[in-house]
């Protein structure tokens, strides 16, 4: 499924989404997939804002900014994507209830102001509100081992994921009973 948008970004978006892919399933599954992705994007927004607050508390300067920008990205990208299909998400967002608007504005704007205030504290004092201990040789050794563990764990996890996928594919070929309710 493609749009009439022949711009470079438009074609890239069509290719990225690949809406004709069988991964989206049938019409019901497709609707649920889109709901699920929206839920994931919403969770990511709040996670990025929360992570920005944490990193600002610990004295980060570039990381909180990057995380705040990342939290805005889903809204910007989805607004652009919908506009090319003739839907104005900003206008539709005006239909939200005052209570929902208040909650969203207070949580996101409040966190943003908090992050900026914490960054200002870091700039003025030279350390975060909760200062991290200075790295030591032992600390660097521990960090190195943690990173190595993460890399190895990721590889093991990838293998486990592949095995799980293979097992699931084998189970899916088993005969299903008719008229099973679930």
């Amino acid at each position: 499924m493609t749009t009439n948008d022949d711009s470079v970004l438009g074609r890239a978006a069509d290719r990225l989404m690949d809406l004709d892919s069988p991964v989206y399933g049938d019409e019901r599954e497709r609707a649920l997939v889109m709901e699920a992705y929206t839920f994931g994007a919403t969770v990511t927004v709040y996670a990025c804002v929360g992570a920005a607050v944490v990193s600002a508390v610990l004295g980060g300067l570039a990381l909180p900014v990057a995380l705040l920008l990342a939290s805005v990205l889903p809204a910007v990208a989805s607004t652009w994507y919908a506009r090319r299909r003739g839907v104005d998400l900003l206008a539709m967002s005006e239909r939200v209830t005052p209570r929902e608007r208040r909650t969203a504005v207070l949580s996101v704007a409040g966190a943003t102001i908090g992050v900026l205030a914490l960054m200002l504290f870091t700039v003025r004092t030279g350390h975060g509100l909760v200062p991290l201990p200075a790295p030591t040789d032992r600390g660097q050794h521990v960090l190195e081992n943690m990173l190595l563990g993460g890399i190895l764990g990721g590889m093991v996890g990838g293998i486990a994921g592949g095995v799980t996928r293979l097992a699931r594919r084998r189970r899916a070929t088993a005969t299903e009973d008719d008229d099973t309710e679930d």
Partner: protein
Amino acid sequence: MTTRLTGPSTPRGAAAAESPVRLRRRALKITQAELAAATEVSRQTIIAIEQGDYAPSVFLALRIARTLGSTVEDLFGAAEPDTGGSA
């Protein structure tokens, strides 16, 4: 959010038992899997339709009606749509 064919108080078993799609499918001795394959959707979607948890699009409703040798009005016309919840 998807449109349900039954009210929120309708027990799932009752919705499945009275579904015209299910009745017609059983009369023709077609399994859910066979109907799903014929209409190019998943078996779970057929189950959701029979249980009243999902209202198919016009195109899917027409395919189901054509496969079951019936009409959209006979299969889906009696239920009042009730928006809310998801399948």
